């Protein structure tokens, strides 16, 4: 810090002075200046009044329901991760389900065609193929 501070510099530092954020030497200098300079003193008083007003404001308290919701976060997150884990274990499940559904549809379709007597030769073959594939896949899944 240089020898003396101008009013403009002090004016700028009054906030930090009030907040006790200045080095001791500067603080002492400003304290002395405020005793003699009316203009800076007025600025200091005004700033101090604002600080008092801000400091007077009360803290807020959260509602019981919000507190409950916050405390429930671990439980809710636990459920979500449980579901994710379950699906993670059966990550092939959706794909396998889609294949099974297709084969099952093919089976039903084959049966319908057979029962109507149309396309008998070709549908019997596809019905048998689908049936064999279905049972093979089913066995693989069960054995796993």
């Amino acid at each position: 810090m240089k020898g003396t501070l101008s009013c403009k510099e002090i004016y700028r530092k009054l906030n930090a002075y009030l907040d006790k954020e200045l080095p001791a030497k500067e603080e002492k200098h400003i304290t002395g200046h405020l005793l003699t300079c009316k203009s800076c003193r007025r600025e200091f008083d005004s700033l101090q009044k604002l600080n008092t007003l801000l400091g007077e404001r009360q803290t807020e308290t959260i509602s019981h329901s919000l507190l409950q919701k916050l405390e429930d976060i671990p439980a809710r997150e636990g459920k979500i991760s449980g579901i994710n884990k379950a699906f993670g274990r059966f990550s092939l499940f959706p794909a396998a389900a889609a294949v099974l559904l297709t084969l099952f549809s093919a089976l039903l379709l084959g049966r319908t065609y057979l029962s109507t007597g149309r396309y008998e030769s070709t549908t019997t073959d596809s019905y048998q193929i689908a049936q064999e594939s279905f049972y093979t896949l089913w066995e693989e899944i069960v054995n796993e």
Partner: protein
Amino acid sequence: MKKPEFTRVIEEYSNRIYGFLLRFLANREDAEDVSQIVFLSFYRKMETIDPSKYGAYLFRSAHNAAINYKKKKKRYVSLDTTVTEPVSEESRESEDKEKQESFKRAFKKLKPEESLAIELQFYQKKSYQEIAGIIGKTPQAVDSILVRAKRKLRRYLQDFED
């Protein structure tokens, strides 16, 4: 292990974060919604955060979440329909209503980083160094932000300086 620690964090910070959000958003429901977002995000990342920086993380997170929330809300709500709720029933009993309203109006005029700095200094009793750590600026920059914020507040609160 994670749950007891999280419960302790809620006990220590929930009122402070909620208070900050309430002053920042000036709406109880919004403050409650954003509080949940902040603590949920904290819970998910808790294991990666240094416990000595929980407070800094929560305030920074609340600050960002509140700004995002305001932006999103602006897209759907026109400005002239903004309804300001009473900040607190209890404080309204003990403080002059007019003063409260002036404070609310004045706080709304501040930039997000200014209101955060005021919040951290006056409500969380943080030093410039601590505020600097939370908002990612130098203590000198914090001083400048506070000076600017207080000038604005004084301008808007002139009635109370007489």
